[in-house]
């Protein structure tokens, strides 16, 4: 059979733009980080913490993570289905509409048009753009799968399809709002109901954007990189179905001790603990796939990114359920512990896998050797150290502040005023900023390495890494 002519231009473009939006997310992240310690660096009305923080999270999730998802899914789906994507035109439309949406999102957030719902701040006109974008993507991926030349659908395709449906359901339900003007709307849900819907969305956006898609990448790129297959197909099946079944019950663990009915909180807590099993199913499947291949951790920089990435996924999915237990939540919730948890996931898991995927793709779609493996290793260590400083300093800060919030005198009064606890946070917030700077340095090394590879890298001569899909 002839090798199909794959569309690689679309993969190139999405990689380029996702890296650009990723840089924006990190830089804005650093700005809000410094604003926490130096409030005089707020420049109203557009550049205050309250407006920039949603820009940071939206650029990170919708620009960087979703951009990489688009790039890698278009690459993976063509290989696993052995056909070119269903529609090149639709994909090109999607690329430019993606950038238009991210720009519209950034501008509207700076102008203060926001719904206040976390990770769903965009007002209704931009919401509609997001929906159009996702529908275009969904059609293209699903149609490619339907007209595939390979009967069996590999694990990565399952996670892709689940993510596509999941995001669609979550986003549409949580977006239900009544417009008052072009830039202002009110949620159709009120109070406790609104909170419950929002965190059903919020937590499962993590499942469907920051868990299922990176797993799709991991299951594809790990065997491709090591040259040995995934250890157990059975574990993959069990992990997949139990993951997408259980995740949806857990959103309310963000709302423990709030007025949301107790029974929902209890279900959320129970399912969060059960979720350890399918999460670790993938972690263990990944580890066991390395059997006899552990030397590649030393020889192959890509394996290092992938295995450390899945390790942080494992840590993340132990820490998460711990926070979902009522008694621990009572102590730690609302402190800096929580952003530390999130950033272990985004910087340690999602970004590690995203970087690995891009390192895998770029030489193949450009037909160039990677400019420097040493620089890739430097990149690895900088982002690892940066993220550890970031998270560990704020875990300490969170425990410290939670302890002070709960401290009581013998006469039953509180030991500390709120401000006495808050001012203790400053040194840790500074440490977090330093962690962020180191992480950014690592990403700049990565970008430099990519540019050098694409611009001047040596052409691939060995047939080990064939240039795929170029005529």
């Amino acid at each position, binding site marked *: 059979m002839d090798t199909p002519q794959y569309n690689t231009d679309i993969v190139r473009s999405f990689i380029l733009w996702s890296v650009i939006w990723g840089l924006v997310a990190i830089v804005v992240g650093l700005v809000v980080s410094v604003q*926490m310690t130096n409030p005089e660096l707020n420049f109203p009305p557009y550049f205050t913490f*309250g407006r920039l923080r949603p820009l940071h999270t939206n650029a990170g999730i919708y620009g960087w993570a979703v951009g990489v998802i688009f790039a890698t899914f278009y690459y993976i789906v063509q290989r696993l289905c052995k056909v070119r994507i269903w529609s090149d035109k639709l994909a090109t439309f999607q690329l430019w509409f993606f950038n238009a949406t991210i720009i519209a999102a950034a501008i509207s957030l700076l102008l203060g048009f926001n719904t206040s719902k976390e990770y769903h701040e965009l007002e209704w006109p931009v919401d509609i753009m997001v929906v159009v974008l996702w529908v275009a993507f969904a059609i293209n991926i*699903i149609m490619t799968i339907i007209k595939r030349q390979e009967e069996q659908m590999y694990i990565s395709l399952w996670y892709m399809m689940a993510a596509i*449906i999941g995001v669609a*359901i979550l986003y549409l339900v949580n977006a239900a709002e009544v417009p008052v003007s072009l830039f202002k709307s009110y949620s159709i849900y009120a109070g406790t109901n609104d909170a419950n819907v929002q965190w059903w969305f919020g937590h499962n956006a993590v499942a469907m954007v920051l868990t299922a898609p990176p797993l799709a990448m991991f299951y594809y790129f790990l065997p491709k990189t090591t040259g040995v297959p995934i250890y157990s197909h059975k574990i993959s099946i069990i992990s997949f179905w139990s993951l997408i079944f259980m995740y949806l019950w857990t959103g309310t663990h963000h709302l423990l001790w709030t007025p949301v009915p107790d029974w929902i909180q209890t279900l959320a807590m129970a399912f969060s603990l059960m979720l350890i099993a399918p999460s670790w199913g993938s972690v263990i499947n990944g580890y066991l796939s390395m059997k006899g291949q552990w030397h590649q951790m030393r020889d192959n920089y890509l394996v290092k990114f992938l295995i450390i990435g899945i390790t942080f996924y494992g840590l993340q999915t132990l820490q998460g359920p711990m926070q979902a237990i009522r008694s621990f939540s009572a102590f730690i919730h609302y402190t800096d512990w929580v952003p530390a948890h999130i950033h272990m996931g985004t910087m340690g898991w999602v970004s590690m896998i995203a970087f690995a995927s891009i390192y895998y793709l770029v030489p193949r779609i450009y037909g160039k050797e990677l400019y420097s493996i040493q620089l890739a290793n430097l990149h690895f260590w900088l982002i690892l150290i940066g993220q550890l400083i970031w998270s560990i300093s704020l875990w300490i800060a969170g425990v410290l502040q939670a302890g002070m919030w709960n401290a009581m005198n013998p006469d039953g009064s509180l030991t500390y005023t709120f401000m006495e606890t808050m001012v203790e946070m400053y040194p840790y917030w500074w440490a977090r900023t330093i962690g962020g700077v180191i992480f950014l340095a690592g990403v700049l090394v990565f970008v430099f390495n990519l540019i050098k590879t694409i611009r001047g890298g040596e052409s691939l001569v060995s047939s080990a890494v064939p240039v795929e899909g170029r005529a």
Partner: protein
Amino acid sequence: MWEKRPILFLILATAAIMTGTTITMIVPFLSVNTEADRIESVKPYTPLQQEGRDVYIREGCNNCHTQTVRPLVSEVLRYGEYSKSGEFVYDRPFLWGSKRTGPDLARLGGKYPDAWHYKHMASPRTMIPGSNMPDYGWLSKNPLDPDLARRKMKVLDFPYTEKQIADLATKNEMDAIVAYLQKLGNDIPWRKAAQTTIVGDLKNPFIGNKDAIEAGEHLYENSCAPCHGEDRQGEIGPELTDIDMDDADLYEIIHNGISDGGMPAFGSLGSEKVWQLVNYLKEKDDD
């Protein structure tokens, strides 16, 4: 079989996703915001308060402030009565937040006088030393839009009068956000219910104790000076240089506040610290 049939796969995946969704997200609509959790005294926002709420949303205040008090000892002591579902039926969207870089605001309404809020919003650090809140004085330069406000009230189906709408023309965004903050948590009479009744004789345990006076001075600088002035000369609150009041009465005022006069209750500091303040205030008095 499902591994070879994408349409079947999509149906199964949707079913898996919708199971938990139905039970934990759709079913609760049957009981939440119904007669079951209704609180009669909770009222919708006035046009001015709603405008303030929208400023709160626009400026992303919910990124640093929560609005829900959990039923935990330290939390109720710090912020007040724990939050009830029925208190939020007019909140579209909800604003419970997820991070307390600043304190919870669910029970802020009525804690401080309006003048405190105007001053604090314009310059947080003059009122709260060490705060990292941005300045929001610029809000007072932004007028409100009465026509848009009317449209909002119609969409939300809240009662309003044309006079309330017309009055917005004379107000600005700062007036609106202060009006909103003063409503927070105030629809149930929790402040009265939470007030401690002091029983028995109050006896000053620190008379003439220099350490207590020094500690009281430190407490004064942090908790009292923003309203009563560095030198007790009075600003938002009255001057405190010449207090003609016995120790027990002074203790009671600091401990319980004066709700009509805008004096917050400082009972959460604990009796020891309140006595330290009493001794500091009385000691300077004797000079």
